[in-house]
């Protein structure tokens, strides 16, 4: 070997080795060969599949996206009828997946943090209850939990006709085995002003926060940013609401024939899925939170007390920021798990992406390769975006070495 450890061997010019022995050139060469081989294999794989599909007489391509779907979907966040296209159906499924994932992540995080802190509580009962919660929920398969919520809890609710409601009489809310019925707000002209007001309020909150931070650095005086911000966030849209003359119409639900009609309905499939995903993932998040807090050395707490910080300030300013560095990476995995687990929806009839697009659309069009590829790409994209966001957040709270 002419070169070791990349250190020049002293003999200048005279012993200049051939390019073959240059580790850098060799590395590039082998990587290039590998890329060509991989590219060829991918290409031949795709053309092989396409060739086989054509030979077997199976239609392929993405033209089906523009065709009429012709079926109904139980829960739609965007306007959808049976006359909509397959692409619209895809969109409905995607939004249903995103909604249950986003809400699941929100609730799982809240419950997880509470239970995680409860496991460290000094109160015996709270601590043990939290332990029982974690050990029960994280040790039962999620699919069973979903079936439990759907079949054992929600399916035994009474039928709407058995809840004692009178035909045609409106109610504020009602819960039956067709779902939770709540009033629906129908926006009228001017309603968008309230949304604008809310956005302005959030912007104001941020500005006040920045101003308060600077002032504190300069003068040491604190400003109640949170309370002020909350007051603005509630007050400004509320003021707009009254100024624009309450531009909402409220629609209540009522028993009509077989079913409730009117109002907003939250279907039992959705409730079961959200409950199952949130409670299951929360049990893992609770352990992650507990681990994160325990990872902060006890000396940190003692030092904070020695400096005269209150217990509240100690946890908010000393413990939690350091614990977050330990918590966030595994938390990201849990968020990804929750999103992917939402595809178990197919077992309890929630119309998510897999059920609507990978199920019904696949079967109506018969184009398995395209549909499954798109479904996989969608999950990959959602996961990568979640990861990217969490990595960004992680770098915000990571230890900055000065």
């Amino acid at each position, binding site marked *: 070997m002419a070169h070791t450890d990349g250190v020049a061997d002293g003999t200048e010019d005279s012993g200049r080795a051939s390019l073959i022995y240059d580790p850098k050139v060799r590395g590039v060469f082998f990587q290039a060969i590998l890329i060509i081989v991989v590219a060829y294999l991918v290409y031949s794989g795709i053309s092989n599949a396409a060739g086989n599909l054509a030979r*077997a007489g199976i239609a392929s391509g993405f033209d089906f996206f523009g065709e009429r779907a*012709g079926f109904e979907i139980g829960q739609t966040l965007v306007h959808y009828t049976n006359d909509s296209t397959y692409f619209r159906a895809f969109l409905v499924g995607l939004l249903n997946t995103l909604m249950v994932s986003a809400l699941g992540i929100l609730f799982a995080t809240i419950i997880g943090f509470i239970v995680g802190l409860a496991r460290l509580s000094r109160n015996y009962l709270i601590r043990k209850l939290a332990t029982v919660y974690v050990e029960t929920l994280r040790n039962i398969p999620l699919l069973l939990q979903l079936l439990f919520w759907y*079949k054992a809890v929600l399916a035994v609710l009474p039928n709407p006709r058995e809840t004692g409601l009178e035909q045609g009489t409106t109610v504020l809310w009602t819960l039956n085995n067709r779902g939770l019925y709540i009033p629906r707000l129908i926006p009228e002209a001017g309603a968008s002003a309230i949304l604008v007001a809310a956005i302005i309020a959030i912007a104001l909150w941020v500005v006040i926060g920045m101003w308060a931070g600077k002032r504190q650095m300069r003068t040491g005086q604190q400003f109640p940013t949170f309370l002020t911000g909350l007051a603005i966030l509630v007050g400004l849209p509320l003021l707009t609401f009254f100024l624009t003359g309450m531009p909402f119409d409220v629609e209540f639900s009522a028993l009509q024939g077989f079913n409730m009609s009117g109002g907003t309905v939250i279907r039992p499939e959705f409730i079961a899925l959200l409950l199952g995903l949130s409670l299951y993932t929360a049990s893992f998040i609770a352990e992650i939170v507990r681990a994160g807090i325990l990872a902060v050395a006890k000396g940190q707490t003692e030092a904070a007390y020695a400096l005269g910080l209150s217990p509240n300030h100690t946890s908010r300013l000393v413990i939690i920021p350091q614990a977050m560095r330990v918590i966030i990476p595994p938390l990201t995995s849990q968020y990804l798990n929750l999103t992917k687990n939402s595809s178990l929806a197919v077992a309890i009839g929630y119309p998510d992406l897999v059920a609507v697009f990978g199920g019904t659309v696949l079967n109506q069009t*018969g184009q398995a390769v395209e549909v499954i590829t798109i479904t996989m790409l969608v999950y990959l994209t959602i996961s990568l975006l979640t990861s990217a966001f969490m990595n960004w957040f992680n770098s915000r709270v990571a230890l900055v070495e000065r």
Partner: protein
Amino acid sequence: MKYSFLSAVAGVAVAAGLGATAASAATLDDVKAKGFVQCGVSTGLAGFSAPDDAGDWKGIDVDLCRGVAAAIFDDASAVKYSPLSAKERFTALQSGEIDILSRNTTWTMSRDTELGLNFAGVNYYDGQGFMVRKSLGVNSALQLSGASVCVQTGTTTELNLTDYFKANNMTYNPVVFEKLEEVNAAYDSNRCDVYTTDQSGLYAIRLGLSAPDDHVVLPEVISKEPLGPVVRQGDDQWFSIVKWVHFAMINAEELGVTSENVDEMMDSENPNIMRLLGKEGTFGEAVGLENDWAYQVIKNVGNYGEVFEANVGESTPLGIARGLNALWTNGGLQYAPPVR
């Protein structure tokens, strides 16, 4: 880094290699080589394809597969069953996992032309219907507006349902499941007001509910559902075998040949029967089978009428009348081209 790269290459190579083995032509040779027919059936629909209490598959769809096995191997039990959901069935057939799909599958144009499949006949003429609780007091499907409807995904049922409600200016809320058992459980627990699928299926499912007598199948039939066996496109010999096993069973009923009397019928002087049972001509050899192929089908499985009566007929719990499935000579639609 390099290792993960290499293993990725290996993965792609394996995937490409698998793709190359798909779509082989001579199904009959493959079946003979492995010694059994791989038959795609439902996950359990009484009368059509469902395991009995001894674990043996029974039903008219099952008997078609048994007939094919009898024609090839002289042994109706040389069949292995793959229970498939509605969603899985076509992919299983396209990929070569099964040889015949005999799973109450509706013959439609798009399935026949776009999926690379061929329908080999109609072994049951069905139509989509509705089942409701008697307590609803409904006696026509036209009174169902606003109802929650339980339906299985991946079926023509989902589309017919939409069309019917749309044509009659009615609304409904679909509750869609992938597996038949899940739809049954949801309907049984009153999650839905209405259950819709093919009428034959409704009768079968009604028997499995906790209180069958509380439910009624509405009279409306909202679609044509010709159910039949399916094979892959591109293998005409196999297509012919499946088609003619079905026709042989219908012809046998028409000619009065049953599993009981088929041995006596071997001495028949009727040229139609002689051709069917292989006493005259070489019809079996033309599709790669023995000349007594139809004899074996009838001897081991029975004619169409026997199969119908044994699985779904008046004497069974399903109690379905022949109706459209009677022979053409009796005013029904079952009609087979002659063996000639």
